[in-house]
């Protein structure tokens, strides 16, 4: 069983980090929330509504956007086309019907506008991750599930992403992010949840988590990252 007895509540408007060793079940939690997996017991509530059993596309339309750990762009298309698909299909029923304009705005925010007509096969890793973020954002989510958005990025790229996430949070989007790189977690999160072997072992403010003995034993090691 990948995830057992996890009780997590993310507040609207907060930035919540989700950390834990590899294989602890973090991505599984995302898969459960977004409808790719079905829980054997328990409920998943989004805005007072149980979303267990709904399809991923339905959940997307309800307002949850998600990036994948390994970027999954639509490889036949250009950057802007990728974003527009999300803007066209992910926004159904959320009002505002100019996918092109919205895509352009999002690409400018994520700093991909210059490369908008490039085929995604020509993008670097950092840009692919940006595109994942842009695409998830284009669906107009209220909750954004980010799966290791800065993994594999250098320090400069990580800084850029942190800034973008700050702006996104300023737009009123709730963010729930899985990360192994501690800097975004420490600088952005209001609270952090720690998972180990499919169970929650700690939850609280980043500064508290970093000093939590359980967390240090399971994951961080005795030299916590600054």
């Amino acid at each position, binding site marked *: 069983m990948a995830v057992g007895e996890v009780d997590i509540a993310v507040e609207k408007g907060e930035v919540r980090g989700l950390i834990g060793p590899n294989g602890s079940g973090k991505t599984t939690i995302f*898969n459960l929330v977004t409808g790719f997996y079905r829980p054997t017991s328990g409920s998943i509530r989004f805005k007072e509504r149980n979303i267990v059993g709904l399809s991923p596309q339905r959940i997307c339309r309800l307002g949850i956007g998600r990036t*994948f750990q390994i970027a999954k762009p639509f490889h036949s298309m250009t950057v802007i086309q990728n974003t*527009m*698909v999300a803007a066209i*299909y992910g926004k159904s029923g959320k009002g505002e019907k100019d996918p092109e304009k919205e895509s352009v705005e999002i690409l400018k925010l994520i700093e991909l506008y210059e490369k908008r007509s490039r085929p995604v096969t020509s993008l670097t890793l950092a840009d692919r991750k940006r595109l994942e973020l842009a695409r998830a954002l284009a669906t107009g989510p209220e909750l954004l599930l980010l799966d290791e958005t800065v993994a594999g990025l250098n320090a400069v790229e990580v800084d850029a992403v942190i800034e973008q996430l700050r702006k996104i949070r300023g737009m009123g989007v709730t963010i729930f992010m899985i990360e192994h790189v501690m800097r975004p977690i420490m600088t952005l999160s209001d609270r952090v949840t720690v998972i180990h072997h499919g169970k929650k072992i700690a939850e609280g403010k980043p500064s508290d988590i970093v000093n939590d003995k359980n967390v240090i034993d399971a994951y961080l090691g005795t030299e916590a990252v600054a």
Partner: protein
Amino acid sequence: MHCVQMKRGMWSKLRNFKFSCYIIAILCTIPVPYIASSGITAITVLLLMYVSMSVSYNLLAGYLGDLSFGHATFFGIGAYTVALLTHYQVCYFQPVNILFGGILAMGFAAVIGYPFLRLKGLYFAIGTLGLSQIFRVLFKNSDFTLRSHGINIPVPLPYSIHPYYYAIVALTFGIIVAADRIVNSRLGLAFVSIRDDPDAARMVGINVTAYRILGFCISALGVGIVGGFFAYFNSYVHPEGVFSLDISFEMLLMVFFGGAGTILGPIVGAVIVLLVEEIGRAFIRQGYLLLLSLMLMVVFLVMPGGVVGTLTKQTPFINPLAQLRRKRVGSA
């Protein structure tokens, strides 16, 4: 419908170019029955049938990426609808019968679509293959469909190829224009998204299964209508002929050899396949099938994008082997 091209200027030029191509092509086809021999005209009818089937099948296999190995099923349903309606003296009006053939084919696709399109790549291929053979056996053994005697459709005399020719010209252009409109619309965008990454497509709000069924139905409609036309043109329909593996295989080959996922690809593929067939049949008779198989191997091994995909590098590759190996949902 809103199109996704960002370069506006280039787009209107392209559209004018395309429009002129259509006009020129139509003008070229119109005088054929008057200036060419009856043999050439008949081959042109066959070619246009191939093009129509190929373009329809491309919507499913090229743009949506679902490789059906049994699309002859819909060809046969269209053909038999016409044959049975005529034989049982229900209706003699050709356009209605042909259209009804297409609609029945599409209806059947809608019914079996849901279970079939939840199968992953290879299993969908095998499942559809089996379906076409089930139909072949069913129709061969049913008295209602006159078993293996087949059904003759009386030809109005004196015989003239003209009505058949112009009907298929209109049909082919109709199908090409329809396919073009679909492909450049939001629907086409959804199709390509599903082909590229179904999970990502789901995560941006696309109902993958529903759109797959839609693509399945649309391609069935096109192929079914051609089947109906075939019944009249050939004036004879029998199970081995219309539910044959050859027809399914030809559709697959035309699309992939020509260039899956493009508008021009299936057309080029249809021309090449027809040429190979006719020339092959002249020299090595049934051996032409071997040539076709070799062509398919060439596609899989060397040029997955087909002729058009390889020549015009801007066209995305669609690799048939990768499509068959596709796994299902939700990898963690």
